[in-house]
């Protein structure tokens, strides 16, 4: 390959990424409310977390459910260093933030090394328990350290909001994982996931591969943690509880273990589902809830029946799928409207906001019933696929569910 051309293309894409993130930052600060800016910020954090866990869980196949621990290590590294050393340092706020990101990544990487080592001897459920335990140990250590603020948390100054850095981190995380899979280096990680014995027989160093996955994954989570800490100016151990680990894990599984695109989509979706109802401030009547529930049940059962029983021509199958995907929820909505208009069920109303975790749960159940391998399976987004869709050979099932 022509080196000059390579550097030109690479320089251009890096510049586009940085400028794009700066533009996003500027646009968000200028046009959006503070609350929404914070959501955009957190969305970037969650993309980083999900994609970095996907490297460990999905690509290398090491079932880790303690990702919040690495996130926490990064956050506390950033917070503590800022509290004790910022005033004495000659660095400006943004330079300090970047330094904290690097420090958080480094320390979380070391934590990743510590957790990665036992993964050589442990597989599957056992490794999961160790990572879970590690997450709890880190949290409990912090709770018991008065210097780290204990359970009441750690406050520090200054707060530095680096929205563009968050998104740049997410872009870098996605790029690094994608690059890994594009070159033959990624094959070693995938081989370890598929069959450890065979991978070893092919001369792949298991130790090195697994530990590398843990270190890289943990470092990205740590960087995200440092950014979060600097953005908030206050952190406490409750921000990094087990349920955060599970949320990240759910994102990876829902998106399709191993698929970077899937992790990104699932991170955005799962993050948005509980947040959007809060923004929309809609009241729904019991009538609509009943209608929509009936729609969801009908939707899942009909689509599943179709997936399992239908063996006819493909074109007709797609028609049926589209009809089900569009028709049944609409029918549910229609039923809701009928009940709302003609019965007393309309008297009872609920705030959509209060139902946000119900919606999240229903989404998870529906996706896992219809696509247990995750929305994207092992697949990635590609321009070829877009071409396929545009020229008419559309994989409807995947499209409609995502």
């Amino acid at each position: 390959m022509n080196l000059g051309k390579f550097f030109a293309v690479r320089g251009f894409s890096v510049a586009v990424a940085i400028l794009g993130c700066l533009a996003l930052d500027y646009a968000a600060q200028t046009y959006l409310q503070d609350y929404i800016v914070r959501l955009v910020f957190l969305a970037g954090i969650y993309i980083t977390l999900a994609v970095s866990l996907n490297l460990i869980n999905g690509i290398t196949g090491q079932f880790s459910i303690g990702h919040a621990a690495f996130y926490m290590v990064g956050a506390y590294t950033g917070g503590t260093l800022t509290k004790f050393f910022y005033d004495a340092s000659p660095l400006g706020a943004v330079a300090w933030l970047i330094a904290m990101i690097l420090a958080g990544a480094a320390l979380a990487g070391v934590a990743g090394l510590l957790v990665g080592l036992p993964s050589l001897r442990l597989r599957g459920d056992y490794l999961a328990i160790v990572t879970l335990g590690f997450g709890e140990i880190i949290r409990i250590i912090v709770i018991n350290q008065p210097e780290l603020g204990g359970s009441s948390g750690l406050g520090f100054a200054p707060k530095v909001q680096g929205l563009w850095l968050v998104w740049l981190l997410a872009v870098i995380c996605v790029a690094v994982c994608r690059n890994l899979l594009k070159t033959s280096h990624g094959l070693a990680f995938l081989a370890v996931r598929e069959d450890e014995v065979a991978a070893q027989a092919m001369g792949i160093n298991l130790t090195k591969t697994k530990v590398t996955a843990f270190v890289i994954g943990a470092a990205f989570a740590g960087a995200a943690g440092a950014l979060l800490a600097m953005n908030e100016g206050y952190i406490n151990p409750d921000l990094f509880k087990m349920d955060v680990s599970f949320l990240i894990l759910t994102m990876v599984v829902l998106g399709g273990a191993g698929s970077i695109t899937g992790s990104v989509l699932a991170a955005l979706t799962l993050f948005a589902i509980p947040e959007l109802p809060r923004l929309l401030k809609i009241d729904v009547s019991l009538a609509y809830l009943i209608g929509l529930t009936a729609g969801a049940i009908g939707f899942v059962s009909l689509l599943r029946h179709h997936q399992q029983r239908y063996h006819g021509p493909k074109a007709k199958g797609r028609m049926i799928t589209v009809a089900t995907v569009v028709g049944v929820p609409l029918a549910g909505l229609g039923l809701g409207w009928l009940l709302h208009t003609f019965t007393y069920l309309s008297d009872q109303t609920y705030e959509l906001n209060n139902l946000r975790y119900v919606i999240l749960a229903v989404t998870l159940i529906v996706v896992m019933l219809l696509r247990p391998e995750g929305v994207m399976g092992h697949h990635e987004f590609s321009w070829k696929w877009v071409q396929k869709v545009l020229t008419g050979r559309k994989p409807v099932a995947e499209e409609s569910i995502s």
Partner: protein
Amino acid sequence: MSEHLDLSQVNVDELPVVPNPLLKLEGATIQFGGLIAVNQVSFEIMPGDLFGLIGPNGAGKTTCFNLITGVYKPTGGSIKFEGNEIAGFNPSKIARAGICRTFQNIRLFGALSALENVMVGGYLRHKTSLLSGLALWPSAIRETEELKEQAMQLLEVVNLTDVAHARARDLPYGKQRRLEIARAMATNPRLILLDEPAAGMNPQEKEELKEVVLRIRDEFGKTVLLIEHDMKFVMGLCEKIVVLDHGEEIAAGPPSEIRSNPKVIEAYLGEPV
């Protein structure tokens, strides 16, 4: 001291040529608790051999493979590859030393394509660092392309170019077996171990396999050690055979000798009444 050999006086060309064995097992033994799975097995494989390891079920053939490839550490004896002790090395180190294997129960990387499976085999000869891969540096891209090309060539050897992009898991059984051989070949081993390569194949597939094995030896100059149950297949293919029974070596020699060896007949057919 006075009889010290003066090397300058020796004419190298006149010395008798004694080839060094590629692989040498000396009293290799492994014991699992009270069970001695492989007991004092010794044999030598010369470069270029087509060597067969046979025996009834449970004779310790696959265990023997596992000793050679480092899955198990022998409890006694030595295993030398090209004169170096390799007993107890871990499998990846042994693969790097130049021994590669296939598995009795096929162990492909199911979700990867046939091509990617073979590319994994070439991974151990990688020179670029992981960092260059993560940064998608030109050197890493170039190396990936090279690996892909080599893998394509190997797929051609085992006649699988048409399914290069199919998922390994979706391939029919016979093709999976051949893909495993291609994958092992991709590590560029000096010794290739085939664990029951013909198991479950129909006669025509067996003929094709025989051709592949011969090609590996003659065209690529690999030394082959294979385990097989199908006597006809082994007798027609291998030049030297070692027979194991209950973990012990009961016979060794060319197929013609093995066929008429009473101990072998007894082991396979049971004791004459």
